[in-house]
């Protein structure tokens, strides 16, 4: 009975009993606290933080599993049943690893950067509407309903944009303070990439907010700046991606780039930059960057789900959709939280399949996608949405506009690139055929 597992088990069960006793003793007070929006928000914040960190650990396992499945392997399956305890093993390993701080780094910023990356990614969850309005069974039927959301602020959408774009600070500080050229290149790439993709991200979000405001009944239109308002605009109607499929796609692309995920992971391009911005990091600090990246993925997925894919709503063909979407019972709230979590899971699975399918962009291609495709298309669609609101057209005009602009963009890109070579190698071949370069030009140039 001296095995540490037994001691841990005894300690855990003792702690559990104490907690249960406290819960039962103070049950009335706890009920009162949970009925207050402020304390409920506090409780929810703690729960969400814990939930997100666990989810991050398991998303890392999911990523390893998905990459394995795509490559006809099984992935981690040794620790626990089908590898389910692998995150625990990884965590123990990372905690116990030596945490090296190289002598040549800027110490303060070097230590600060991973925290920056993670904290910034975590605080964005505050404005995600997890479960809508509800009442506890012990609350009066006419009491002010609680909101299953940490902070219901008026500028929720702007808050997410602002906080999300601060994620680049962690990367840039980490890369700069490492005092290493590869880390620095990675950080520079990340900065340029984030700056570029902020623009299409902002445009698509504005389109979503405008559409939500147009769909909301007149006096509530300003609610569209809150994510819960955007979700309310989709209650009982079509979800916004039905009106704006291309905008939803653009938001997905921009979110990929914002989260530094493949095919936009130039900041940590292993083949060129060793580890990119986290070259010099090890142990738990290194892990914090990854916790931050995955937390960022969860945030952007939840954001996308709320903005264009109905948030915690279920489509009306699902049995009981009416009850799930609008009921103020606390069970409905729990179901709604799971609906949103499921949508987040779908998005993240998509992120991962994209990562293990598509090759990384070249940097000029990355910039071209942002400035020559996403930004003009976003501006045109924004103008269209403004026109729809100004002249009171049907919202379905937006769908037509989306399709037209999509076709125009594809045709234009094909025509622009028609006749001009795609790769550098082809360009050199064409120059050779024109006689611009001799057949041996390369050799002669090299002095051979």
């Amino acid at each position, binding site marked *: 009975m001296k095995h540490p597992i037994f001691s841990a088990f005894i300690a855990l069960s003792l702690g559990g009993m104490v907690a249960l006793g406290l819960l039962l003793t103070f049950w009335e007070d706890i009920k009162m606290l949970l009925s207050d929006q402020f304390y409920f928000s506090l409780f929810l914040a703690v729960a969400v933080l814990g939930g997100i960190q666990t989810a991050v650990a398991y998303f890392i396992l999911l990523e390893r599993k*998905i990459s394995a*499945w*795509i*490559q*006809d*392997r*099984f992935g981690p399956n040794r620790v626990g049943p089908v590898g389910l305890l692998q995150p625990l093993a990884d965590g123990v390993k990372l905690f116990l690893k030596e945490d090296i701080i190289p002598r040549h780094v800027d110490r303060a910023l070097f230590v600060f950067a991973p925290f920056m990356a993670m904290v910034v990614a975590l605080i964005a969850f505050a404005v995600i509407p997890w479960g809508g309005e509800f009442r506890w069974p012990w609350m009066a039927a006419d009491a002010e309903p609680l909101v299953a959301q940490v902070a219901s602020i008026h500028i929720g959408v702007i808050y997410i944009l602002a906080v999300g774009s601060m994620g680049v600070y962690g990367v840039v500080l980490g890369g700069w303070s490492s005092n290493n050229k590869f880390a620095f290149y990675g950080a520079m790439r990340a900065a340029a990439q984030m700056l570029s993709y902020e623009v299409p991200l902002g445009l698509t979000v504005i389109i979503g907010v405008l559409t939500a405001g147009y769909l909301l009944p007149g006096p509530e239109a300003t609610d569209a700046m809150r994510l819960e308002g955007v979700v309310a605009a989709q209650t009982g109607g079509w979800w916004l991606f039905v009106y704006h499929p291309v905008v939803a796609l653009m938001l997905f692309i921009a979110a990929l780039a914002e989260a530094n995920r493949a095919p936009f992971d130039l900041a940590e391009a292993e083949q060129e930059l060793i580890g990119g911005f986290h070259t010099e990091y090890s142990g738990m600090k290194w892990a914090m960057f990854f916790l931050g990246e995955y937390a960022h993925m969860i945030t952007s997925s939840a954001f996308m789900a709320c903005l264009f894919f109905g948030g915690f709503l279920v489509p009306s063909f699902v049995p009981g959709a009416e009850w799930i979407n609008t009921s103020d019972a606390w069970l409905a709230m729990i179901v709604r939280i799971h609906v949103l979590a499921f949508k987040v899971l779908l998005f993240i699975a998509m992120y991962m*399949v*994209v990562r*293990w*399918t*598509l090759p990384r962009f070249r940097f000029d291609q990355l910039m071209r996608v942002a400035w020559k495709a996403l930004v003009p298309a976003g501006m045109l669609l924004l103008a269209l949405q403004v026109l729809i609101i100004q002249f009171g057209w049907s919202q379905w005009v937006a769908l037509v506009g989306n399709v037209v602009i999509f076709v125009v963009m*594809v045709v234009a*890109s*094909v025509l622009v*690139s*028609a006749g001009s070579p*795609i*790769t550098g*190698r*082809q360009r050199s*071949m064409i120059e050779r055929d024109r006689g611009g370069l001799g*057949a*041996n030009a390369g*050799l002669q140039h090299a002095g*051979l």
Partner: protein
Amino acid sequence: MPGYNMPGSDWKQTDVVVVDQPELTLFERSYLPQVLGGMGTTLRHMFNVAKRSKNVVQYPEKKRELRKEIYRGVHRLNRDDQGRVACVACFMCETACPAHCIHIEGAEAPWEDREKYPIKFDIDELRCIYCGMCEEACPVDAIELTPEYQLVGQSRQEMIFDKEKLLMVFDRTKDDKPRKNPRITGY
């Protein structure tokens, strides 16, 4: 490099075949079908449980079937029919070894049928590249590579296999992979 691409040197311009990349068609240039096709491929593999179940070998529980007669694993030093080391200390394997991992010390043989035998025969298993050149070079087929591939040790010193260890490898693998030509040298 003077004369490197002059006429009359050992290669001619006409020997060089320039292969152009095939031009992308208009359909391929529109890019999106290719992206979606790629996603289709990866998703197909992702849900193909049968394929990975068939191909993946869950290693410690299951092991691959090896072609034992040609697998190049840990070395062994063969014994002849009287249980003596078959090596005649000719140094052919040491000479052939590209990784310089074999070290032999020869001495006069105490037996009638040969002149020399090794009093020391060390192989650094960490340095070895398992190319099998020693096996090719050996005139008496005394050194052979076995199908044994689980090679672990606690230190580098431990991974330098001496004569006794190599003979032990022979003792435990001789049923798995019998000696090729036990009577090649006649003794």
